[in-house]
């Protein structure tokens, strides 16, 4: 079972990964976006870390809902509402239980990814976050590491895709050949989850 501390660690590990990779995310966002994905997410997850330190929610669902709300209000770019909805919907699905099972988390994340698809209106293959999140969450049944790997592979697979959503879609065929920044940061989120899960296993 996973408690609120596990989810706080997940968010902190994501914040650390975003901090580490911020320059790379912004670099990926330069040819096909407006070169702010790294700085936007860094601002958002830094605010998440601060909010979680200040409020220390006691339930997994509450941790993710606070994180999601914070992202919606602080990121400033499209990734704010998209990641915000992902975490808020996942948190809402987890409810108020003080501990949740891996199966419950898997189902909740599935709903969260559904909320991202609903909000952004993207389909698989449109060169978006979903191209990492969908395979990632589908592999959660195998293991957290498998999910992280699948998300990473999904992000790499966006390179030959032509963007069909967001600013990158205005570039048409010229969006081909670039890795999608949102799919890349989505892989960081699932990578952080795998790291935290493995750390928890090691501590047992």
């Amino acid at each position: 079972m996973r408690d609120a501390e596990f989810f706080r660690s997940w968010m902190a590990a994501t914040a650390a990964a975003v901090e580490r990779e911020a320059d790379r995310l912004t670099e990926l966002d330069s040819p096909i976006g407006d070169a702010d994905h790294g700085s936007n997410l860094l601002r958002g997850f830094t605010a998440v870390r601060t909010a979680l330190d200040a409020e220390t929610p006691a339930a997994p669902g509450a941790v993710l809902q606070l994180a999601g709300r914070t992202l919606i209000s602080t990121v400033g770019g499209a990734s704010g509402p998209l990641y915000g909805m992902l975490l808020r919907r996942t948190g809402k699905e987890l409810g108020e239980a003080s501990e949740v099972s891996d199966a419950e988390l898997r189902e909740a994340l599935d709903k969260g990814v559904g909320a991202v698809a609903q909000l952004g209106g993207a389909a698989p293959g449109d060169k978006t976050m979903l191209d990492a999140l969908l395979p990632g969450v589908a592999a959660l049944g195998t293991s957290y590491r498998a999910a992280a790997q699948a998300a990473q592979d999904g992000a790499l697979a966006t390179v030959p895709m032509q963007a069909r959503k967001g600013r990158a879609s205005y570039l048409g065929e010229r969006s081909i050949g670039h890795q999608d920044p949102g799919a890349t940061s989505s892989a960081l989120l699932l990578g952080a989850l795998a790291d935290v899960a493995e750390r928890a296993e090691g501590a047992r």
Partner: protein
Amino acid sequence: MTAGRGDGDAAAQQALVGVVLVSHSAQVAESVAELARGLAAGGPVAPVAAAGGTSAGGLGTSAELVVAAAREVDRGAGVALLADLGSSVLTVKALLLEDELPPGSRLVDAPFVEGAVAAVVAASAGAPLAQVAEAAAEAYAYRKA
């Protein structure tokens, strides 16, 4: 129920629909608000608020500014929100899904400038939210060439 120009005193007393303009740029949101107010002038003008740019003054969308603007123009008759693109649209949608905007708030599917003028003109005439949204959406049908 309709509340058109001909409803006399009752319409004058009735609360007007508020309009919020959400843009990536503070200047764009402010300027379009000014344009729409100017073109709607001639009688009472519906409350219009601009929510442009990030809280730090950069290009982007601030959920806080959007919520504050919606509250500012809410007179109880509903709030029509128009957004330019990308994060502006997604932020409004996320706020609606999360019930963080006043009751009766609605994202209007319309071109930003033309839709804003149509929405403010209709709202100023006392049209209810559905008609304000319709007037704004009709701006898509106006061909320029």
